[in-house]
């Protein structure tokens, strides 16, 4: 067995109960403290698992169970408070698809910028530019030199998906993005993801759609209130999740 590409050991992170800290100097000076609630909760608690190269893992759990938090920690955009997560190789995060895009710049400039941020050289982008735009569709092609903020949200997401999925990163993280886009585009995304999987990439998928999970994932990880309560074949884990959901826990 090859070395794992993702290795989480006792991973944990604490959040403040009210999301923002709302600290202000004025308050600190006048009241000698801050009103911000120091109560914390564990968004993830002692989560341990390993993922082998080429595996397709579906992350299952109710709202607020820590799925997105876990994905962000694998992507390295959140740092753990406890334990560690080690990721070998780069990550293509389909999390905030349009996060790297700047509204004022044109679509063309944005493609270069975002791929640049993910480590592609200008020459590499030149090479892939046509296929990126092809994938994003004719509407995007027609508007290549208009500012990105004039794009419809569907077009924005399509371009985002097209850029991130052309990256060479061996690990792909997908967070619910398949819910967007019209039917035809969704099918295109599915095909692209399948070809990435068969190309040996490691897939980490968060979804509430059982059919998506069954289609892509072989293995399921089940999170419940930040704890890993199930890890196994996707069918078994889905069954466990559904049983829990029906029982109302």
């Amino acid at each position, binding site marked *: 067995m090859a070395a794992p590409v993702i290795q989480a050991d006792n991973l944990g*992170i604490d*959040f*403040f109960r009210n999301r*923002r*800290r*709302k*600290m*202000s*100097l*004025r308050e600190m000076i006048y009241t000698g403290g801050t009103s911000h609630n120091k109560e914390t909760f564990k968004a993830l608690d002692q989560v341990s698992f390993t993922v082998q190269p080429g595996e397709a893992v579906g992350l299952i759990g109710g709202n607020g169970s820590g799925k997105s938090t876990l994905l*962000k920690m694998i*992507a*390295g*955009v*959140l*740092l*753990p*408070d406890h334990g560690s997560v080690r990721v070998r190789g780069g*990550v293509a*995060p389909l*999390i*905030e*698809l349009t*996060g*790297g895009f*700047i509204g*004022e*710049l044109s679509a063309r400039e944005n493609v270069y*910028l975002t791929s*640049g*941020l*993910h*480590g592609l*050289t200008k020459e590499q982008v030149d090479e892939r530019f046509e296929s990126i735009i092809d994938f994003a569709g004719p509407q995007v092609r027609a508007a290549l030199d208009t500012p990105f903020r004039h794009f419809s949200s569907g077009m924005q997401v399509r371009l985002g998906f097209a850029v991130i999925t052309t990256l060479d990163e061996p690990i792909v993280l997908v967070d619910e993005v398949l819910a967007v886009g019209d039917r035809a585009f969704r099918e295109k995304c599915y095909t692209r993801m399948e070809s990435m999987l068969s190309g040996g990439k490691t897939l980490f998928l968060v979804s509430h759609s059982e059919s998506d999970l069954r289609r892509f994932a072989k293995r399921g990880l089940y999170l419940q209130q930040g704890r890993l309560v199930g890890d196994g074949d996707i069918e078994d884990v889905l069954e466990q999740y559904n049983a829990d959901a029906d029982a109302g826990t």
Partner: protein
Amino acid sequence: MILVRQMRGLLAKRRILATLVRRDLRVRYGGSPIGYLWTIIDPLAMAAIYFVVFTLIFKARSVGYQPYVLFLIVGLLAWQWFSGSLTETSRALLAESRLIRSTNLPRELWVVRVVIAKMIEFILSMPVLAGFTIFYLIKGDAHLNARLLLVPVGLFLQFVLLTGIGLILAPITTLVTDTARVVRIVLRMGFYSTPIIYGVHAAPASLREVLLFNPMTGILELYRAGFFPHDLNYKSVVLSAVISFGILVIGTLVFERLESSVLKEI
């Protein structure tokens, strides 16, 4: 050592850093000469104001070196880099929160990138300085000397200082909401407690020693050394180097300590 790890991280991503800086400059200049005008018009206007106030109204010819306009412009251009950098680095993490949430880059990069973009603006405004120098050379009032070679040393020190301050301010602004106001007030005070419109020699003896502890004092000394024949104040230069590097180390520590909290907030 602590700085080495951060440096390595940034060096590995230097191409991305260059991309971001280029983007900043493109947004700033927008491909038009008007953009460039904005960079130099502010220090020029300020130089005109101080020139009128100090030489025509107060008749305080001795506050700076002669020619006073040249003295002012060196100080004001450098200060523009300083204040622009502080204002923008303090917002660096907030302003780019979407990018930071979606890309796993060394987070120090967002601060360094602002400092570099502002440094390039400073360097691009140098032709103004050259223009005034040539004017005064022709008039016979200016004295260029070999100490012009100290300008890059000043650039380097100011870069170190601004990166250090930025690494402290950026995470704090994210966590404490009203930091930006404080930065604004401190900048205003900093302007007058830095030898920009006056020279250290014009301050009373009791304040002179205090001024030396302002790291910008030594940095301005390095910039001005080549343009004016006065003796170089070595003490201020050494102090400013020590303080700048000290602040960089503190900044790196603060940034490392607050990084995970910041990521949860943005």
